[in-house]
Structure formats: structure tokens, C-alpha cells
């Protein structure tokens, strides 16, 4: 609990952080439209990369709102995985067959 601005469970600061997380989740749902429509595979990979970045943001906001600093480690792992996933798909589309 950080005094003054109400970060931690139940304070006004944590409500603000949760509201931000709701907004970012809403944006991720909208991004699914771009993943669905494409039209090229590059559009889909970029849209998925943005969704992964949104996942990192949501988990970081939740770590602040729920006062659980351990969640930040998970956010870091997601950031690394997100990069790996985008690279794997991009490499597959450019040089057909090479993934690793």
C-alpha cells in the first residue's frame, strides 16, 4: 500500500489502474478485428504483437492495483515471449520453412 494516492487494494488509485486495464482489454478485443480481416499475414502478426504488448500492460496495471509486485516478473516473461512469437511467425513467412 503506497500512502497518499490510494494504490493498493480498494483505494481510488487502484480503481483508476483497474479502469485503465479494462480499457486496454477493450482495445485488445477491437484488435481481433484486424487479426481476423488481415488482409496480409504481416497485418496479423503486427496486430498480435500489439495484443501481446497490451497483455504486458494489463498485467503491470493489475500488479499495481492488487499490490502484488510478483506479477511484474510475469509481465517481463510475456514481453520476451511476445517478441519470440512475432519473430517466429515473421521468419516463417519470409523464408518459408525456417522457424527456429
Amino acid at each position, binding site marked *: 500500500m503506497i500512502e497518499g494516492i490510494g494504490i493498493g487494494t480498494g483505494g481510488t488509485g487502484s480503481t483508476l489502474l483497474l479502469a485503465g*486495464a479494462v480499457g486496454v*482489454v477493450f482495445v*485488445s478485443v477491437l484488435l*481481433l478485428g484486424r*487479426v*481476423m480481416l488481415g488482409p496480409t499475414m504481416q497485418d496479423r502478426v503486427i496486430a498480435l504483437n500489439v495484443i501481446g504488448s497490451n497483455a504486458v500492460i494489463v498485467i503491470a496495471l493489475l500488479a499495481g492495483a492488487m499490490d502484488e509486485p510478483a506479477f511484474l516478473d510475469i509481465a517481463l516473461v*510475456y514481453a520476451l515471449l511476445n517478441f519470440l512469437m512475432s519473430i*517466429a511467425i515473421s521468419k516463417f513467412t519470409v523464408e518459408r*520453412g525456417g*522457424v527456429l
Partner: protein
Amino acid sequence: MITWIEGGLLLFVVLTALMTAMLRDVLAAIIVFGGYSLGMAILWVVLQAPDVGLTEAAVGAGVMTVLFLVTIARTTRMTGLEVTTVDVNWSAAVLCVVFVFAVLATVPALPAVGAGPEANPAFGEVSSYYIENAYDDTHVENVVTAVLVAYRGFDTFGEATVVFAAGVAVLTVLRREVFE
């Protein structure tokens, strides 16, 4: 406010699952499946199970994507089907929905979350027994480890067999990719 996050994430997960099943282009379905894993992983974090969330992200978004890509690299993939969807067998789909609702109808019969041993007899006595006697019985300091490797050792042995078989299968698929 947490309810809104959970609702949004559930909507995201259901949409990505439907798109994975419906999209005809395999590569697009793999990309959407990566999104599904990310949504599922955040849901685990929201439900206060960060270790499961880590596993979901590492296995679902990381390993599965690469494995699927290697699989279609070694087989064939039809192109030019960018946004077409598969033909849905509607009677089978309706049957699946009916089955899901039949299973969901049993949920109200479950004991409430956090209910005491009187409402939840199957778990009340066992968990307190493990917590009190695990160290004397097994001399393992972590009670979860004690349950996994001592009390349920044969279950864990079966699990390890399955994981080993899966690892061998993955190496077989990846071999050309890795050793070329």
C-alpha cells in the same frame, strides 16, 4: 471493476477460440491461437494463479506456436484463403452447445468457494491431514512437493511418463529443424 476485466477477457478468449476453429487459413489460425493463449494467461493472473499463467504463456504462446509452424513447414499449406471460414456442421455445433449447457447445469450443485469442511467433506479432512503430518511421514519440507512425490507418487510417475513421451515426439518433429 475486476468483473469488467474478467468479462472483457472472457469475451476475448471466446472470440479467439471461435476464430481459431473457423479460419480456413492454417497460418492465420495459428496466429489467432497465440492471441488465445495470451488472453487465457492474463485470465489466470487475474484469478491469482500466476504460476499457471506463466506456464500457459510459455507453452501456449511460445512452444505451441513454434511447434505448429514447424508442422506446417514440413507439410503443406493451402494459400489464397485469407478470410474464408470452414463450412460449419450446424447439427454438431448445436450438439456441442447443448452438451456444454448440460455440464454447466451441474455447477450450482458444487460447494461454494471457501466453504468449510462441513459443506465440502471430500477436501476438509485430507488437506488438514497433509498439512499436519506431511513432514513426519515423508521428511519433505514443502507440503505440495510431499503430496506430489510421496503421497501421490504413482500418479506423478505416470505424468512423468507422458511428459517424456511428449518430449520424444517433439524432438522427432523438430529434428531436421535443429540438426540441419
